[in-house]
């Protein structure tokens, strides 16, 4: 009897850097733009994943940043990212002020396999509860766009915290998605200023707000929370207290920790 040699250890192939072309740039708010990148040989992504972007100067100096993908998987290789301009930043002001349609940018992805939602299997029927703060809405928008394109009709709610009404990213598109009558409700809270006739929430996300917006979905909801750390902590802790199992609460955070 002979012993077969062990197969060589399988090394996964790297996620390759690709040279994408900027095909559109759209203002979302005065400080937020969406940039669509046409990425060659894009293998597809799931809603919630991100890409890495690399900028390289002529002398070889380079910087990298991660950006959540805003576009739904159904849009294929036209991958949209939504970028908030950070004052004093190195990458976001470049994307806002220098990049024009036709420019080429190095990207690789998709990256991340946990903060994802797919309108398939059990998830397509289960209630979906999304909580966003500011530009934390971006990966959640990919989920909502995907939900619509996939024809899902599961009950879904987005609780979205913004400072001012004019800071609400994707405001018109969210209103249109919610108006489609397929089970989506978008609830805004405005923490700094409100339009004169505002009747909605007017404070930071808190336990009571989470409880009120979640209630019709029940404890069987799948939850995705993305935003600054303080918001994510409040929302995730509230969901745990409301009885949701920890493994149904998925989080992504950005911004200063405040400590």
């Amino acid at each position, binding site marked *: 009897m002979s012993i077969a040699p062990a197969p060589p250890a399988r090394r996964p192939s790297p996620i390759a850097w690709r040279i994408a072309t900027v095909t559109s740039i759209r203002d979302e708010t005065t400080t937020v733009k969406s940039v669509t990148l046409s990425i060659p040989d894009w293998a597809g992504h799931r809603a919630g994943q991100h890409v890495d972007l*690399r900028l*390289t*100067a002529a002398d070889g100096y380079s910087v990298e940043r991660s950006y959540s993908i805003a576009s739904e998987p159904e849009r294929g290789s036209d991958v949209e990212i939504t970028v908030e301009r950070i004052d004093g930043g190195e990458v976001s002001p470049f994307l806002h002020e220098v990049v024009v349609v036709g420019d080429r940018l190095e990207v690789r992805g998709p*990256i991340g396999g*946990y903060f994802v939602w797919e309108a398939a299997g059990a998830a397509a029927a289960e209630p979906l509860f999304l909580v966003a703060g500011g530009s934390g809405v971006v990966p959640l928008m990919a989920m909502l766009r995907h939900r619509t394109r996939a024809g899902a009709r599961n009950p879904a709610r987005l609780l979205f915290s913004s400072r001012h009404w004019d800071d609400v990213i994707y405001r018109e598109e969210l209103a249109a998605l919610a108006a489609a009558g397929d089970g989506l409700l978008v609830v805004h809270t405005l923490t700094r200023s409100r339009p004169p006739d505002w009747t909605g929430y007017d404070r930071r996300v808190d336990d009571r707000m989470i409880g009120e917006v979640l209630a019709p979905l029940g404890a069987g909801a799948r939850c995705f929370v993305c935003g600054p750390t303080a918001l994510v902590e409040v929302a995730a802790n509230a*969901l745990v207290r409301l009885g949701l199992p920890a*493994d149904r*609460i998925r989080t992504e955070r950005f911004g200063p920790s405040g400590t």
Partner: protein
Amino acid sequence: MTERFVTRGFVGRRGAGPEGGGAGDVASRVPPGQYLTTDFPVLSAGPTPRTPLDRWSFYVEGLVREPVTWTWDEFTALPARDWTVDISCVTKWTKLDMRWHGVSVDTLLEAVELEPSAAFAIAHSDGGYTTNLPIGDVLNGQAFVAWEYDGKPLSPEHGGPARLVVPGRYFWKSAKWIRGIRLIDRDVPGFWESLGYHNRGDQWLEERYSGD
């Protein structure tokens, strides 16, 4: 060798700043693709677990002669020291000179006597998080379990009451809310290592994702 891609119009700021690269000595401490931050950003995949200290314990088990379990009081009475280390997160931030207080993994493993077949350490955390490290990556002062950061008890968002810290690897290897280490004889990918992130995670080799 392929020609290097150059981004049209990009010069870069290259200064140490909230989003800058860093200069001189500082720049040499920033791994490739990272930027310096003075914040201490928080990242985690789910809710922050909270275990009361009177129900907290720490174990070392698996391929050891005699497993050991410490209570919080016993654990924090182990010989500990201050550690000042640079930390790099795979999400691209690097923070220099982070000051911690805790016990070396060497001290923890001295308390058990490893079986000769023990080759990998799996960190287990509250909430079910795991991460895998070859024993060679955590011995000889390369890893510690910290319960203080910057002179204060480690906050829950940052992994308190105690977290593993492995400065030579991307920060996801520094398991928050650690409750034990299991020694095994073969490599088993942990949470992020099973979800597309690199198995080893050496920030100086830019081992971010599977296949890098």
